[in-house]
């Protein structure tokens, strides 16, 4: 009997979990389905979830129409990939330093790093936007990449420091006795060991830059505009093109979904290692 009771409890929990998951992603499922609806379908019938047919015109217009968003999708891709690359580069070297060297006041610096994540972006935005304009970097890929690097390096460094701290010292010592420089230790020994940690951080940074809105909105015009900004234009206030917005939004969340499904191992270790500190 006890066994049956256990099985029964187990199934109940399973069912509850299924329901919870479905509820959690319901909005996203909805928007993907909505992207295949015509405008009228979206508004005419209340409680309409499934489209009547696979109406592809929304995507056609978003990607290839007169006011196509394809360029902005490409911009987002380029900017996110490059920013991630630079961030990982810079923060891994710094994290290595923090983890292995005795740095004065490293605790203070770490707190400083953490506090930048706490800062409301709007506080940094105003002065930085003035600077970016003065440097003629407004609406350039370079300008946004610089900003994203600035914004993400602190957090990435903090996370990678934790990863590096977990590595054993003995190998480094052995290598240095053999005549390796710190750079070589970094490159040949430590980096490969935390590859999965690097990957986690890279994933998180990519997602963050892919999703970023405020900076991109203020600091891009047409050349470097990113996809989230393009989406806000569909919901501009006076004329809202819901059906086009649904298509554009689906495109925007696609990488996020793909990354979660295929790279969830890295994501989770990245997100939670921030919590299970040393």
């Amino acid at each position, binding site marked *: 009997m006890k066994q049956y009771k256990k099985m029964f409890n187990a199934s109940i929990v399973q069912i509850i979990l299924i329901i919870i998951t479905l509820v959690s992603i319901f909005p996203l499922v909805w928007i993907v389905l909505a992207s295949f609806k015509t405008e009228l379908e979206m508004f005419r019938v209340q409680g309409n979830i499934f489209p009547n047919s696979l109406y592809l015109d929304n995507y056609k217009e978003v990607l290839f129409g007169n006011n196509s968003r394809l360029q902005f999708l490409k911009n987002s891709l380029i900017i996110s990939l490059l920013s991630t690359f630079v961030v990982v580069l810079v923060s891994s070297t710094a994290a290595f330093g923090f983890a292995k060297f005795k740095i004065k006041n490293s605790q203070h610096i770490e707190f400083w790093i953490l506090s930048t994540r706490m800062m409301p972006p709007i506080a940094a935005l105003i002065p930085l936007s003035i600077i970016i304009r003065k440097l003629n970097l407004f609406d350039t890929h370079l300008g946004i990449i610089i900003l994203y690097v600035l914004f993400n390096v602190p957090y990435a460094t903090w996370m990678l420091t934790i990863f590096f701290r977990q590595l054993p010292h003995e190998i480094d010592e052995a290598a240095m006795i053999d005549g390796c420089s710190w750079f070589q230790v970094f490159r040949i020994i430590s980096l490969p060991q935390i590859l999965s940690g690097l990957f986690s951080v890279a994933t998180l940074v990519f997602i963050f830059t892919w999703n970023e809105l405020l900076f991109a909105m203020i600091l891009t015009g047409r050349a470097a505009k990113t996809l989230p900004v393009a989406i*806000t234009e569909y919901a501009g206030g006076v004329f809202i093109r819901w059906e086009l917005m649904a298509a554009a939004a689906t495109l925007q969340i696609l990488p996020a979904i793909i990354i979660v499904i295929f790279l969830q191992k890295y994501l989770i270790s990245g997100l939670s290692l921030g919590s299970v500190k040393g």
Partner: protein
Amino acid sequence: MHANRIEKLLFIGPVIVLLILFSVFPLLYSLFMSFTDFSIARGYTNGFIGLDNYVQLMKNKQFLVSIFNTAKLIVFGVSTQILLGFVIAKLFKARHGSRLTTFLRTIYIIPIMVTPLIFGLISVYLFDPVYGIINYILQALDLGTMTWYGSEKTALFTIYIVDTWQWTPFTTLLILTGLLNVNESLYEASSIDGASVLQQVFHIEIPLLSRVVGIAVIMRFMDIFRMFDLIYASTKGGPGISTEVISLFAYRQSFNFYKTGFGSTAALIALILTVFFSSKLNTYLSREN
């Protein structure tokens, strides 16, 4: 570990420079601008105006309400997300190990990877009082409808619901990780001693989880404090000023009204509040350690 000055500098230097550029510099610049009436469109009109901006800000009802609203969202949002996260994490832990559970967990956390902007835009539609599906379902279940974003009495509540909807998976994940790290033997030992499930929760899990929960609290606190995308996508501060939040206020002053000096003052105050609260939380965390 021994490394000479130059090596240390090479490794850490760039990041320090970045930090200064990104946190110290804007801080100083904002501070400077908060004493002027600089406008990003019109330049300086009167130049240095001393504490005028601060005085105006303190008198500005919209600003004060924005602080109050932000505080409300933080208090209710964080507590709900932690509590819900805990309950759901327990459920996930109970079925931990089965492939279905792992699959569900993966899907479950997708919302946190989506930009809040899009979640907000979707929510505007889903919660629309007339053709939104939420009201439709409520009606079907005979639970009556709600005005959600449409009324000043319920708009902030709706923001709270949407934020919780998107971010509970995050707290769930953190807490789940913590729960999975709890030594199984502790449970066994306490059952032998006759402890009930509830007692286990209070005496084993909560103490061991306090670090993880602390981090979850800090992160959600910071995120809700900075909330912009969701409000911008949905209510833009309305109806009335019921969903005005600090970031939105500063943004509107600086970029819609072009009163950059005034906006900087608001942003600066937000910054100071952030540093104040985060240092408090950080000391609490390190003490816990």
